[in-house]
């Protein structure tokens, strides 16, 4: 019998998880919040990034915004006199016979010149798998045209700065 003597055990050290419970909950909550923010935002803002043959093949809704990558065919740029934008023929990097007429409204970047690589974002107004909207196709001043007609709201031209063209 131990009698009067009582043994006091040191209190058991709780596990790391228990000690940091609040912190771990907080960390998980923050991570979840950021993850949620990322996923919903991607759903809301993502746009498809296509080449010209791809938009020809895909059903595009009349208001669906897409991004298209291609090159400006030399000598097809028609700048609007009031500086409000331009029209040009864009062709596919892999298959230059695949073309699209792009109408862009907005300030033209300096990098946008004959033969530059561009990315346009906007919607298809005629042509493609979804059929035509019945609008007459736009013919550019040098006579070139395409069944695909695109209205761009943004135009990104690669900065030829560091562009090794040779």
């Amino acid at each position, binding site marked *: 019998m131990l009698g009067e003597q009582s043994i006091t055990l040191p209190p058991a050290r709780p596990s*790391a998880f228990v*000690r*940091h419970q*609040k*912190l771990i909950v*907080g*960390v998980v909550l*923050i*991570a979840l919040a*950021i993850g949620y*923010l*990322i996923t919903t*935002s*991607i759903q*809301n*803002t*993502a*746009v*498809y*990034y*296509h080449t010209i043959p791809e938009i020809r093949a895909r059903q595009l809704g009349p208001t669906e915004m897409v*991004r298209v*990558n291609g090159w400006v065919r030399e000598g097809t740029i028609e*700048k*609007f*006199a*009031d*500086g*409000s934008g331009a029209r040009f023929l864009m062709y596919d990097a892999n298959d230059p016979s695949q073309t699209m007429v792009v109408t862009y409204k907005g*300030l*033209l*970047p*300096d*990098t946008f*010149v*004959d033969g530059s690589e561009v*990315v346009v*974002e906007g919607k298809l107004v005629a042509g493609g798998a979804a059929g035509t909207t019945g609008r007459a196709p736009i013919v550019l001043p040098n006579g070139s045209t395409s069944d695909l007609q695109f209205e761009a709201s*943004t135009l*990104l*031209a*690669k*900065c*030829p*700065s*560091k*562009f*090794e*063209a*040779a």
Partner: protein
Amino acid sequence: MIADAGRAALLVALILASYGVAAGIFAGRTRRDDVLLSVRRAAWACFALVLVAAAALIASLVAKDYSLRFVALYTSNDAPLNYAVTSMWAGNAGSLLLWVVVLMLFTSIVALTTRHQYRELAPYALAVLMGVGVFFLTMINFLDSPFQRLPVPPPDGRGLNPLLENYWMQIHPPALYLGYVSAAVPFAFAVAALVTRRLDAEWIKGTHRWTLLTWAFLSLGNLLGAKWAYETLGWGGYWGWDPVENAAIMPWFTATAFLHSVMIQERRGMMKVWNVSLIVATFCLTIFGTFLVRSGVLTSVHSFGLSNLGPFFFGFLGFVILGSIALIVSRLKDLRSEATLDSVLSRESSFLVNNLLLIGAAFAIFWGTVYPLVSEATRGLKVTVGAPYYDEVVGPILLAIFLLMGIGPLIAWRRATAANLVRNFRFPIGVGLAALLACIALGLRQIPTLLAAPVLGFVLGGVILEFARGARARVRGFGEPWPTAFARLFARHPSRYGGYLVHVGMILIAVGVIGSKVYQDASEATLQPGGSTQIGGYTLRYEGLNQTATATREVNRATVAVLSDGRQVGTLYPEKNFFPMQQQPQTIVGLRSTLADDLYVVLAAWQPSGEITLKSYLNPLVAWIWIGGAVALLGSLVCFLPGPRPARTRRTQDEATPRSCDCRRGPVTNTLLLALAFAAAAFIFVGWPFFQGRPRPQARRDDALAELRRKRDSIYAALRELEFDARTGKISPKDHAELSESYKRQAIALLKQLDERTRDELLAIDDEIEREVASRRTTTRRRTGLRCVACGAAMDASDRFCRQCGVPRSRSCTRCGAAVETGDRFCPRCGAGL
């Protein structure tokens, strides 16, 4: 000839760097000082050689040597001197050379500053830096050389793209490169610490300062990039979430996170794995950024076009990431925390959350940047996200980061109590509410403003409170006048108050960003001469169009008067120029910048009749972005101050001067001969330590002792901080007593350990003294001339028996020194007993 020298220098530099890697590892394993010295010399020689290469490239650019492809591509006969020089970084090959020059500069500095410290880490750190150098040197030697020749030199170069002929463009890439490349140094130290398992406070101390440097340069590079975009691209903004911009801002976020969490490690020895990972992530992100602009995998406004370097970068990046992960995992045991979190309500946990948010922001940006690749790989469809994504995701995260920026400094280390929270938060919350009310009263009721105003006010209030309390404590404690007290805060606690200054800079930047994003006004008008248009409170009156043309440039410059309340306040000259040779248009923005707003006018189009179309933007508060940036940089400079205990590093320059020869032979022969000359010079310089004979073995410093001293210093620092916190009233007297007690107990324990260690040292000194005394005695004995009769060994005057053979001394009397016979019992002269 000049180009040959460059080519030869690059080749020898590659060989030297490879040698440096191997010799560095060897020096680390064998701890041979001569090998380590040779590695340092290899680093210096490498730096000298890449400088020669850079000088050769610049000389070729200035001399317009069009037989070089790079020169023919990026400069032209009419290029002025400054643009001829800066066209070095207009192309891929030249910019990689700049990368290597900066890397070797930093490697040389590391080689210099580690002569007297980091003895164990230095060889591996140098090996890692040289390894990174090997990678880049291989690329510019064999894959994309700036000294590549053209079979037929053209009469004139293609010229630098006019868009790059801009002041900001001359300084922004080098600044960003300094930031990118300096991230390699902390990485090298981290790898060295992992390899040697010396994961104590030593490496983290050096790494902290280097990361500060990385942070400052990254900030500068990003700011200058934003300034360049704003002033030259002509779209009215300064940040477009372009992949290249994202690539430059991601390492900034991880470096920021490290600079905060490293404080926890310095104070508490916690979060070691996390800190090492942040260093590795920062370095990987800088390589990723360099890779991004060269690989062509993502569409960006400024990429180097498709080049063949992508797979190499990708391979290197993969190697670095996998290697680092393997190294960290294998050292997990050595990276265990020395302490645990005391309370959820403490500065540690607020730093933890701040880190999480900073990394979250970096990850969100990363995810958006690579999303096209991810979606293509997983769904077969390329999907991109644009500026709206980043605004939606990064905006809220930044708001939360700012909130923590306000909370962090106000709560104490280890544990904060409700009472001192109330005490500390009253004033900042008041300032936040005042900011909110002010915005509402001013009619600024947009949601971003209403969210940001109280948070920014809160942060500012906290910083003001910290400065006021700190200065008051000095005024009361040391009787200093207020201005002195204020200035001494920076001198005595540089990293604390420098950090607050950075926070103030961030607040100003946030004000500028919100002002220009939420309240931007844009208008477009087609005007006849004399016509006018309105934007914001300003009237723009078109005065006339001035057209001039030279062979290389057609200039169309509009004169636009700016009127405010009917009074002319300025004149703007927006230009739309054209370079016929390059078929390149160029927009020059008419910009009137004031603290309240920027008037940003672009000449969108012009008619021969003189009719023009003006696109104008009113960007409120943009100037505060640049001012805030300057304040933040100033703050980081203050952080760099050595603090109360000056840490001295000697700096001397020591470089090899390579020689050139002027023989006229074919380029290949020239290159070969020059390479041989460089190699010979480098060989002698680098190999010199081995011909010095075996080096004197240097006394190894007691590393454990040094580690104890560092721990003691960090506890002293923590105590000092605690005292300061108590004096500024940040923590309650009860907490102060308790924490002070615990720190003191730790300090005493450490001091005891130190004493024990030093006692050993003292004992060693005692031994030394004993030995010295003994040897002195021998010499004195020799001087007395007494010798043993039997064996002839030297004897002291007091010796009665010979130390060597035990034969009693007999030749002389001990008292008077008179000669005696061996059998005599008394001295025959003085009668003393023998």
